[in-house]
């Protein structure tokens, strides 16, 4: 057996170890982006998530660029995000919400204790509209332009550091 062949298994082992270290150092992105980015928002007509707020239909997402926020009262990161959404609202951003698998009293309590940045909130008790949007969790947000085209999808909570990004995406959608 030649020398090169004798050392082949060792070389193979080193390649495998290098591959494993590389994957550990740069983990894969497990987010699943929606393929509807750049396409019209699917038609929906949701009921009101709570009495005090108007319901949400896809037709309402027209006129000027709007931020559509997918949230839930039982979602922990949403508590922090809703405060950032209020900052965005204070800067003139129009925000609508879709409450996933929620109850009116829970949504009301969530808004009462964390603040309320939403103009309209639709009730999506079986995640049907969430699935039709290609969204895979809470919270997620979509920038929808004045013609009802999805221009940007933000997966995960909007952090204070994301505010300039969101404002820029809304400006681009103009």
């Amino acid at each position, binding site marked *: 057996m030649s020398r090169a062949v004798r050392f082949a298994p060792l070389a193979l082992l080193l390649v495998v170890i290098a591959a494993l270290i590389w994957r550990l150092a740069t983990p894969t992105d497990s987010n*699943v982006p929606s393929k509807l980015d750049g396409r019209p928002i699917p038609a929906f007509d949701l009921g009101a998530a709570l009495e005090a707020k108007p319901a949400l239909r896809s037709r309402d997402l027209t006129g000027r660029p709007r931020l559509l926020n997918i949230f839930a009262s039982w979602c922990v990161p949403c508590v922090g995000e809703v405060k950032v959404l209020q900052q965005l609202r204070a800067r003139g951003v129009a925000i609508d919400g879709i409450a996933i698998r929620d109850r009116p009293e829970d949504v009301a309590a969530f808004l009462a204790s964390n603040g309320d940045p939403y103009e309209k909130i639709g009730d999506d008790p079986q995640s049907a509209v969430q699935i039709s949007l290609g969204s895979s969790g809470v919270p997620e947000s979509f920038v929808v332009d004045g013609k009802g085209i999805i221009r940007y999808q933000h997966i995960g909570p909007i952090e204070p550091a994301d505010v300039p990004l969101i404002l820029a995406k809304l400006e681009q959608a103009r």
Partner: protein
Amino acid sequence: MKRVAILVAFLSAQPLLADSNLPPAYWADRQLPDPRDEAKAQALMDELRCLVCQGQSIADSDAELAGDMRDLVRRRIAAGEKPSAIRSWLIQRYGTWISYKPTAEPAAWPLWLAPLALLLIGAWLIRRRIKR
């Protein structure tokens, strides 16, 4: 007193769940009345990937979103929609990622060619042995 307090704390402990307070969707864990429809739905659900417990099918996953997707699949099958139509509706939204069924796109070519390549290598090895 302290022991009682600890006992009460243990008994009232709740896991911190990132789950909603709503019950599962109607068709999430219920079979369709028509066994043929149910078989079609089951076959499709086995091939759809859960968005939450990635690596499980929606038939296997306990995630609420998987339950809602099972409900969606069963409702549409019961309404007469073809499984292939439901699959492509989901692929339009989530990409081929959502489906376990391999496609013929270039990224999947090694998958299709590997068995052929292995057979050829095997045949070549056997031929060498026989010749010797």
